């Protein structure tokens, strides 16, 4: 705790002005600025970066990251984290293809319901058994990874006669891929829930000050469970999108999205300490990462170098967007 900051408003007010000048309004602008700078750099590096084909590629990659990132964001907003999305995505990925073979269109609601139930279990381990989310979700994620391998140790391929079902995601309408439309709908869903519903808004209160929320009568158990349900929904939808795009399920596909989703959320300016940030931030964060991944390939950055540049960009973005003055201790 920072001791001398209690009541004597003078410094506090001054700090705030410093803060206001540097962070309050521009948080999102910094993220947008980073994105624009990256786009400009890559466009200068290779004109084809801005070609319709390449933008489409970026959008497809970003779509998946966004959907899983929006879910992850909900757990980060309450000051927790969800490391189990990797396991869940792997499991849903194979489950979806198996289910499409067996029950056709019903695979969609089945998989989303799986995400809801799994999120609810995660939430309860945190809220009722009171195990820190970092450990709890590390554990449940491991369990789900095993389940995925038990369902199918090898990637499963969707039979060609079921491609029609997959075209809900893979198809396009008037030149716009369905995947992009569906992603926009997912975003809209998260936006409306977090901004315009009581339960969604409670996520911000609980993340900002859980003691105050409890004392003010907010149901902190329900709110946190809800955040995990949203995370489960995001991850399962992302897994469905991936399986459709690959015409098959892969029991190991989720792993990369654990840290990817956290990076997308944090790069967008949502603080790991909870309470601040939101869906728009996450969209921008997701695009920053996707543009990086794609752009470095397009301009021909040495593959061995890419990870280190990506790491540097994550640190720089968080430096610009995350309001460190509000957090007394950085851990």
């Amino acid at each position, binding site marked *: *705790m920072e*001791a*001398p900051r*209690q*009541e*004597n*408003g*003078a*410094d*506090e*007010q*001054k*700090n*705030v*002005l*410093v803060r*206001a*000048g540097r962070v*309050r309004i521009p948080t999102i602008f910094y993220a947008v600025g980073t994105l624009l700078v990256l786009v400009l750099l890559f466009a200068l590096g290779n004109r084809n970066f801005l070609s319709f084909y390449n933008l489409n590629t970026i959008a497809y990659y970003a779509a998946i990251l966004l959907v899983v990132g929006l879910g992850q964001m909900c757990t980060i907003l309450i000051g927790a984290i969800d490391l189990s999305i990797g396991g869940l995505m792997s499991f849903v990925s194979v489950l979806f293809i198996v289910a499409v073979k067996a029950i056709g269109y019903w695979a969609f609601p089945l998989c989303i319901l799986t995400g809801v139930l799994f999120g609810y279990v995660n939430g309860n381990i945190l809220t009722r058994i009171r195990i820190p989310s970092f450990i709890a979700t590390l554990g449940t994620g491991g369990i789900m990874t095993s389940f995925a391998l038990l369902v199918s140790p090898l990637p499963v391929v969707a039979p060609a006669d079921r491609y029609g079902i997959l075209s809900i995601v893979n198809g396009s309408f008037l030149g716009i891929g369905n995947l992009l439309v569906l992603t926009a709908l997912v975003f809209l869903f998260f936006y*409306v829930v977090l*901004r*315009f*519903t*009581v339960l969604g*808004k409670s996520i*911000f*209160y609980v993340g*900002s*000050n859980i*003691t*105050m*929320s*409890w*004392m*003010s*009568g*907010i*149901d902190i158990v329900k709110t946190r469970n809800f955040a995990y349900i949203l995370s489960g929904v995001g991850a399962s939808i992302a897994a469905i999108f991936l399986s459709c795009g690959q015409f098959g399920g892969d029991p190991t596909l989720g792993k990369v999205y654990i840290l990817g989703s956290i990076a997308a959320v944090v790069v967008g300016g949502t603080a790991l300490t909870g*309470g*601040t940030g939101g869906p728009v931030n996450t969209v921008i964060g997701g695009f920053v990462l996707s543009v990086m991944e794609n752009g470095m390939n397009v301009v021909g950055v040495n593959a061995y170098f890419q990870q280190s540049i990506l790491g540097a960009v994550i640190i720089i973005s968080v430096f610009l967007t995350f309001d460190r003055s*509000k957090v007394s201790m950085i851990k």
Partner: protein
Amino acid sequence: MMSTTIAESRPILDLRKVSKSYPGVVALDNVDFTVHPNEMVGLVGENGAGKSTLMKILIGLVQPDSGTFMLRGQAAALKDPSDGARFGIGMVFQDGSLVPNLSIMENLFLCHEIGFRKFGFLSRRDMRTTAEGLLEHVKVHVSVETPIAAVTPAVRQMVEIARLLWLSRLYGQTNPILILDEPTTVLTEGERDTLFAILRDIKKEASIILISHRLQEIVENSDRIVIMKDGKNVSEIGAASAVITEIEQAMVGHAFSADRYREDEQGVPGDEVILKVDNLYKKGAFEPISFTIRKGEIVSLVGLVGSGKEEICRCLNGLERADRGAVILGGKKLVAGSPRDAVASGEGHIPIDRRSEGLALGMTVAENVNLLVLGRLKNVGLVSPARERKNAERWIDECRIKTPSSSTLCANLSGGNQQKTVIAKWLSSQVKLLVLDHPTRGVDVGAKDDIYKLIRNLAREGIGMLIMCDTLEEDIGLSNRMQVMKDGRLVKEVECPPKGKPSPRDIIGLIV
């Protein structure tokens, strides 16, 4: 007598024309500040007057933009608080800067243990002997092995003072300068007296800067009073000739209402009983207790810390579970240990620590004000941003919260305005009963009056209130009726009609 000798001696600390500005705000504007050896200087000013910036400069936490800083006759440039320790100047912070899970002894010597090294290891025996001597000096009789978390705030404070004295001795400085920032807010009446007795004793070997909102104790204890306003030191008076109302006037710049607690606005409570506490009992905290609060009535719960009054309040709000008995609010028995049920039944709670229990500091004023009523601000099933803004603006207006806009972060408001935000939150949810736990703690004079006014308005609107105040005068001034507690029992009920308030002296006899 004393004051002439002080004036003649060379100042130990001498600040001339010190200025400090932050982007957009001038925190200190050509401030002069001196401290003489063996002197207790009282420093007063409203929140935001620049007191804490000045103190941060003194201990090296903040560097001034301009001005001279003479310490013990030589120019000093403190880069950080450890420099401060080397120059024999240090601060006892409002909320403590000790490590709770370490023992008193370990805290005393933290980061400076090197002197106790023997053959490369720290000698615990030497440390213990020294620590015991230090505690003896500040008259604390607790084992030096006790963890800080297990001792009272009064003992913690003494440990901090002992540490500062020891540090200055370690660095070979005589007459250290101790800065005490609101030292008495966490103390009971008795502990306050002990603190000042010890400080008077310490004054023989040190200088003390005392910051406090309680002007009474400033006037009683300091040799000289420095009054700050808007980043300038506006006046300096010898304590012998100080009058509280004059100090208040210098602090706020306008005369403070003579009727301090707006007693002329005190109304007559209605007949309808809002809250009925029926044989409420919690083992180890309080014996079976019964009382009622009527519509528009302000009942104050007084007693020493540890008399059980805090626990009663926590049980009323559902923050703790009573063992037996019932809390009946508006005819409905509350579920024990459920703040949700208490809130849903129309009970509000202004907590003692608004920063950690009353507000989401990182969220906007509007979001804080609307927290309880979001469900009512819906339009076609969704919370309507327009209605949110309208509701927030209405209550910002009604509670006179000074904020640039409804979308300002709560962290950016002053203590008084934060407190008004907490009150606004409960008012907008139309509470029947409000429990106010030290509602004016850490709030400056001007904002205090606003809060008194609000409390009177609430009573007029028929809200019942249970109140616990910082001072007995405030309790007596505000309430219709007092419930006096001692050792977990209600010992007496005292009526407090507007004309015919009991004197604090009558009440204090019942408490101790």
